[in-house]
């Protein structure tokens, strides 16, 4: 397998198949053989980025590889020895606040970010600091929901990060010095960056937050060399294309309770008054890193809610491409296909968790290139990658009640609550087991609508979501067979889950919780095989890497602003006890 130049998602499947054989035959020999046999290690070549799925030394992408499987191919740490996992080192950042970072590792050097856009380069073997970059934040920031950052992209000898004040910065990977800075959006109008960018060849690609502030969402490509803007794809179409087909149902055919006649009447009134430019403030943020398919040179990402979130009275139509899976050309940013989950969403049950490319079975049982998305709704959706069409959806992962009841001024109770289901948390898959692992919230809420005009960059929800304080909240990790949609196993957690998962060829799934527990589960059964108390919310996705023959698991414990989990500032790496 080494040296073969194939696309990321194929590699992931191949590695998983090997891992599955090892697991099912009870083999537990230590293995760290999946190595980086290309490049000069510290300089991240495009070849390394393409082959990341098979790279057991490094963790080069926020979701490990372009297909975003979060499946790490080494199995030195596995189901038989994970009980021996112990902290190798702890690094404390300067910032005690919400932490959502996916650590990136390049040849023994780790790059982590914190709230308010600090970046640290650390020795991945010892945790010793190499350099520390503190972004010079502008005085104006507008962001929801916490001063988060989900990590960097690495390519060449540079490290790239989006910032809360809507900049994209390129740093020298060896020194942490600023190489260039580009403006992605205007923070005064509600644009901000929390996602990790993705680099493909000469382009750094990044979306935007701001769906709670009346932005017009986009994905932009910048020159990796100098930060020059190369193309922009707007997630809100101009012309009348954002109106869509006036679809009245969700993907399962259930009525969304839209009043299409009223929407069309409102549109006619707006057109007659020359005030039908609402699409310029229609939201459609992109919260998470796109997946990339090098064979077709296409990006896949999901688009967030329309603005204002809860009030649809002045945004008639389907509000395309909000709440959608979208594919575009990486070369030009041109639209290729989309699938919209909720036309004219008035619940903020939008699409945020990063999509995953994987080989899946279509409706006839034939293997095709697929796209998985863990949704707030709360299902795992399985699409064809070629045309974005929906193949199937999973069984619901948390309770659904009173679905699509419209928000009212007094508040309407509906499940799931507006955080999901699956929030921004990245799923992981185990290609050998054909399972997708999703972190879910059960957080009963009431949905309130209150129509207000565009407030010029201020928070614009068009009402309020309120957690019902008297009702129990909890979370779960759900393993879904993406070829059938059936839930294979499910483990309930004390608190709603946010942060993301990591699966490994060692037959493990790693996930943290708001109460400070960081746990390893048996990927096949969900049995808890190991746990460690980190003292603050573990609400960031774990990464794994190997240095000098030792596999490590690393995770951030900084809590979470959105769910108010205990804050901290620790990056903790684990390895097997000697």
């Amino acid at each position: 397998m080494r040296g073969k130049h194939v696309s990321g998602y194929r590699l992931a499947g191949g590695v998983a198949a090997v891992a599955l054989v090892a697991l099912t035959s009870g083999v537990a020999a230590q293995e760290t053989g999946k190595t980086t046999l290309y490049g000069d290690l510290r300089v991240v070549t495009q070849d390394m980025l393409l082959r990341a799925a098979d790279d057991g030394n490094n963790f080069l992408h926020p979701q490990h590889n372009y297909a975003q499987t979060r499946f790490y191919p080494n199995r030195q740490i596995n189901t038989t020895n994970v009980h021996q996992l112990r902290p190798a080192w702890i690094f404390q950042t300067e910032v005690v606040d919400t932490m959502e970072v996916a650590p990136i590792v390049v040849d023994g050097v780790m790059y982590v970010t914190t709230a308010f856009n600090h970046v640290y380069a650390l020795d991945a073997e010892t945790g010793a600091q190499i350099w520390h970059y503190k972004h010079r934040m502008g005085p104006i920031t507008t962001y929801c929901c916490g001063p988060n950052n989900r990590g960097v992209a690495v390519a060449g000898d540079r490290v790239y990060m989006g910032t809360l004040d809507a900049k994209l910065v390129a740093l020298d990977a060896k020194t942490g010095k600023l190489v260039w800075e580009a403006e992605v959006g205007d923070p005064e109008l509600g644009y901000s960056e929390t996602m990790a960018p993705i680099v493909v060849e000469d382009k750094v690609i990044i979306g935007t937050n701001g769906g709670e502030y009346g932005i017009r969402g986009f994905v932009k490509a910048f020159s990796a060399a100098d930060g020059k803007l190369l193309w922009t794809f707007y997630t809100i179409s101009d012309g009348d294309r954002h109106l869509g087909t006036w679809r009245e149902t969700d993907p399962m055919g259930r009525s969304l309770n839209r009043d299409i006649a009223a929407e069309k009447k409102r549109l006619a009134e707006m057109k007659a008054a020359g005030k039908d430019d609402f699409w310029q403030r229609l939201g459609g943020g992109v919260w998470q890193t796109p997946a990339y398919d090098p064979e077709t040179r296409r990006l896949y990402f999901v688009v967030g809610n329309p603005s204002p979130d809860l009030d649809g009275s002045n945004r008639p139509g389907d509000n395309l491409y909000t709440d959608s899976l979208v594919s575009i050309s990486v070369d030009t940013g041109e639209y290729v296909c989309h699938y919209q989950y909720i036309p004219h969403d008035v619940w903020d049950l939008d699409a945020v968790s990063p999509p995953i490319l994987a080989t899946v079975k279509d409706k006839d049982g034939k293997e095709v290139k697929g796209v998985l998305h863990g949704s707030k709704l709360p299902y795992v959706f399985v699409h064809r990658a070629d045309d974005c069409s929906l193949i199937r959806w999973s069984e619901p992962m948390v309770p659904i009640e009173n679905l699509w009841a419209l928000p009212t001024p007094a508040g309407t109770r509906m499940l799931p609550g507006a955080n999901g289901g699956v929030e921004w948390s990245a799923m992981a898959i185990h290609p050998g087991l054909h399972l997708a692992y999703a972190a879910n919230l059960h957080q009963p809420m009431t949905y309130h609508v209150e129509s207000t005009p565009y407030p010029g960059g201020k928070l614009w929800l068009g009402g309020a979501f309120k957690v019902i304080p008297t009702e129990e909240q909890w979370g779960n990790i759900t393993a879904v067979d993406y070829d059938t949609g059936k839930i294979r196993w499910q483990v309930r957690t004390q608190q709603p889950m946010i942060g993301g998962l990591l699966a490994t060829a060692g037959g493990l799934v790693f996930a943290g919780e708001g109460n400070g527990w960081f746990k390893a589960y048996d990927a096949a059964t969900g049995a808890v095989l190991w746990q460690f108390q980190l003292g603050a919310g573990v609400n960031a996705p774990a990464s794994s890497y190997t240095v000098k023959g030792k596999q490590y698991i690393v995770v951030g414990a900084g809590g979470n602003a959105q769910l108010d989990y205990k804050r901290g500032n620790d990056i903790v790496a684990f390895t097997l006890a000697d």
Partner: protein
Amino acid sequence: MRKWFVVFLAVVGTGGAATAGTVEELAQTCTACHGDSRQLPTDPAFPIIAGQQFYYLYVQLRDFASGLRQNEIMQGIVAGMDKATMQAVAQYWSEQPWPTTAFPGPTAEERERAERVIASGQCSACHLGGFEGNSRVPRLRNQQPGYLEKIMLDFKFKRRMNAPDMSALFTDVAEADITALAHYLAGL
């Protein structure tokens, strides 16, 4: 970036716009009611502005000027104030230390009420842990309880309309809960 305003004022601030000197003079006008880093505001219903977030302060001045936020005294004060002056004044106050406060905390029952409202409204998602705020989101921690209560009631009864989502959030929050929340935040 923070230095930018000082430079701007020194170099460009002529012909009616504020100068570095007049910013401090203007600040004295504010002190008369709002106090400063050493003294609390003269009225329990007036907010502490020393140490408040820069962009929040600027937006409030802007909204008073446009009439989006209604207050007879403040509208009189900002009348004729240009953008650069508003930003300079906001910058000045944002750089002052927050005064020492010793507001009594909530009762046990009030604490329970307040924490319920905070959980329901997901307040820390914007005001952040510790309620220190950031940029356009104001600090609430150790703010005057009388002011906090007044403003939340203004949101509830639609008297303050320049933050529409705060109005929506407080619509069905009970007045006793608002009092409890004000005491909780003031006493943090």
